[in-house]
């Protein structure tokens, strides 16, 4: 398995180069889906590898890490890998039907796979500059994908996204440059050791670098003061890409990179955790308040992404094992239900030709699959008991109370209620109510799109299973351990090299 680790990057990259040469749409469908399916299997296999061998370090080019680049797979990496590859497989499945509406399908798949390469590479890498390069790869591919429809609004959203996102990348690069000057190394484990030796108390230089990273990754994750690009960019993209962007891209590029750098390299200081909590609550409330007034389905969903990211940050910012468990589990769950919701909105757009809730109505009979899956996802995102969203929110709220922050818990509950109200609006206007005459002849969407939605709905329904001890020890608990014992990251990596 260790030898197969480079395939996470090499396979999608090679397929992306190949797909671009294809003229035939069917062949492109087949190759892209095969590629994402193999990656899904590989990512599931990493669960067992990490369980059996602990943390895995792979030396690229056989150079010992401070000299060469390393890939590091630990619990957190595995959680993200599984999430990203699961969503990407389902998105590519969904694209078979959905992308028939656009031209240049092979190019779409090529860009899709390049974005996937960027995310996989960023998650797996153990080198700071390498992380920046993958950040840009995923970023550049997503700018092009947001503008894929070449309508005026899409181009505008893409330009705005591109400017803010490149700014974020510049901040990250400046941070890497200063950190290199300060520690003379680029390997994350090595930097962590050097920083720990240099000084116990954080000085101005380290603080400044930390702020640069926080701004860079915060822009990528669309945390509230840095959010203005998200509600434009995510709705503008084609539906499978919206699902990827909201479901995994902001998490891999923003949250994961931030957690990795702050917990494993700088060491999580109380100041940082406090900042995370406050940013989390701000995102949670502002996002949901902005969402309530929206009538465009995809825009509404995009605002909810900001709000749900707030929950993840709040959970992790508490710093307690329970809070981190809740935060990471919510990260996984949010990927599932938000992707499902974007698939639903894509299906509505595909069938009814509009994204405006006021123009829809009574689609329940015409589109039973979309209606049922949308109901599951809506209940899940609002935190209604049997679904996965409930468990993670419950954990976060309980952790807030345990950590003696009942105020935070109150805000989380308020946010959840507002979410529920806004999704009741979606269900009411889109599916129930008076059927409109214009939509009398509507048909359900193609089967590949239905399949993707049904699989995600089942995951949402059974998501709580992951909390059973057997599954929890495989997927969630190792990830939590990585964050709690962030200081041990460097010693473990170096012990594996010996």
């Amino acid at each position: 398995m260790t030898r197969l680790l480079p395939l996470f990057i090499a396979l999608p990259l090679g397929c992306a180069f190949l797909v671009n040469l294809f003229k035939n749409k069917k062949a492109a469908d087949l190759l892209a889906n095969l590629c994402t399916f193999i990656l899904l299997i590989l990512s599931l296999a990493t669960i067992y590898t990490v369980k059996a061998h602990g943390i895995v370090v792979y030396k690229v080019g056989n150079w010992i890490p401070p000299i060469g680049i390393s890939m590091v797979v630990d619990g957190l990496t595995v959680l993200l890998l599984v999430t990203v590859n699961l969503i990407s497989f389902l998105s590519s499945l969904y694209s078979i039907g959905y992308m028939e509406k656009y031209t240049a399908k092979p190019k779409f798949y090529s860009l899709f796979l390049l974005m996937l390469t960027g995310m996989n590479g960023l998650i797996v890498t153990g080198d700071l500059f390498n992380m920046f390069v993958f950040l840009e790869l995923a970023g550049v591919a997503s700018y092009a994908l947001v503008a894929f429809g070449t309508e005026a609004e899409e181009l505008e959203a893409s330009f705005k996204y591109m400017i803010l996102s490149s700014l974020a990348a510049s901040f990250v690069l400046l941070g890497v440059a200063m950190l290199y000057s300060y520690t003379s190394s680029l390997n994350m484990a090595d930097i962590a050791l050097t920083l720990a030796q240099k000084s116990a108390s954080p000085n101005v230089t380290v603080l400044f670098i930390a702020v640069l990273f926080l701004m860079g990754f915060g822009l990528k994750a669309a945390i509230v003061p840095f959010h203005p690009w998200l509600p434009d960019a995510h709705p503008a993209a084609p539906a499978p890409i919206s699902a990827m962007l909201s479901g995994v891209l902001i998490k891999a590029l923003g949250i994961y990179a931030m957690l990795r750098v702050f917990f494993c390299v700088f060491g999580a200081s109380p100041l940082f955790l406090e900042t995370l909590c406050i940013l989390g609550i701000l995102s949670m409330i502002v996002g949901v308040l902005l969402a309530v007034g929206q009538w465009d389905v995809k825009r509404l969903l995009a605002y909810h992404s900001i709000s749900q990211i707030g929950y993840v940050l709040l959970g992790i910012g508490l710093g307690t094992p329970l809070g981190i468990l809740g935060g990471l589990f919510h990260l996984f769950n949010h990927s599932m239900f938000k992707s499902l919701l974007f698939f639903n909105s894509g299906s509505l757009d595909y069938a009814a030709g509009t994204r405006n809730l006021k123009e829809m109505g009574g689609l329940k009979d015409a589109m039973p699959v979309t209606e049922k899956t949308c109901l599951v996802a809506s209940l899940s995102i609002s935190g209604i008991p049997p679904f996965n969203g409930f468990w993670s929110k419950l954990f976060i709220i309980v952790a807030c109370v345990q950590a003696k922050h009942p105020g935070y818990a109150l805000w989380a509950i308020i946010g959840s209620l507002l979410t529920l109200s806004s999704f009741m609006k979606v269900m009411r206007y889109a599916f129930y109510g008076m059927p409109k005459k214009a939509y009398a002849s509507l048909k359900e969407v193609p089967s590949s799109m239905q399949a993707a939605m049904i699989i995600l709905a089942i995951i949402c329904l059974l998501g709580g299973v992951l909390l059973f001890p057997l599954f929890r020890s495989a997927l969630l608990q190792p990830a939590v351990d990585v964050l709690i014992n962030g200081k041990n990251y460097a010693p473990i990596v170096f012990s594996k090299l010996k």
Partner: protein
Amino acid sequence: MEYITLTEADQLIPLMIFMIIGSIVALEIKDMLSSVIAMGAVGVGVTISFLILKAPDLAITQLVVEILCLILLVRATIKREMYFPRKHVDYLRIISALVLIFVFLVFSYAALRGLPQFGMPIMKVASEYISRGIRETGATNMVASIILDYRGYDTLIEASILFTAVLGVSVVLRAVGRIRNEKS
């Protein structure tokens, strides 16, 4: 005969000031073509500073990239309407940007003092490259041995980014984006 030797810092500071002024000109000047050309001057300034800093690889690359950027930017600006009606200037935006920049600079001034002094890098990893590089990779150009051997993985991804961007350009500039079926 005595020569007055200028240290690199002495050469760089005027050059930096030239670049800062050049970039302000590039941003503030009204005529678009002049603005693009001012940016070209800044790029040449960067090239010269790379030469002073003993980075010939970068100087070559920066120069050719600069030429290409200029050609692309001139293509984008030429023959296009550049008339901007004078609207009210958004003072709030300018002031908030300036305040942000001021805070950033003050903070960074304090932070920069913690870094090693200019001209004295720590070179923990780099000295290993220099002492072993020629034996281990066989390349005499250390930069080439780093970008293509020690850190070749980065370069692979970097090349893919360029590929992505080219693909993105061809996607964005395609004539028809969506297939519409006009049924309704």
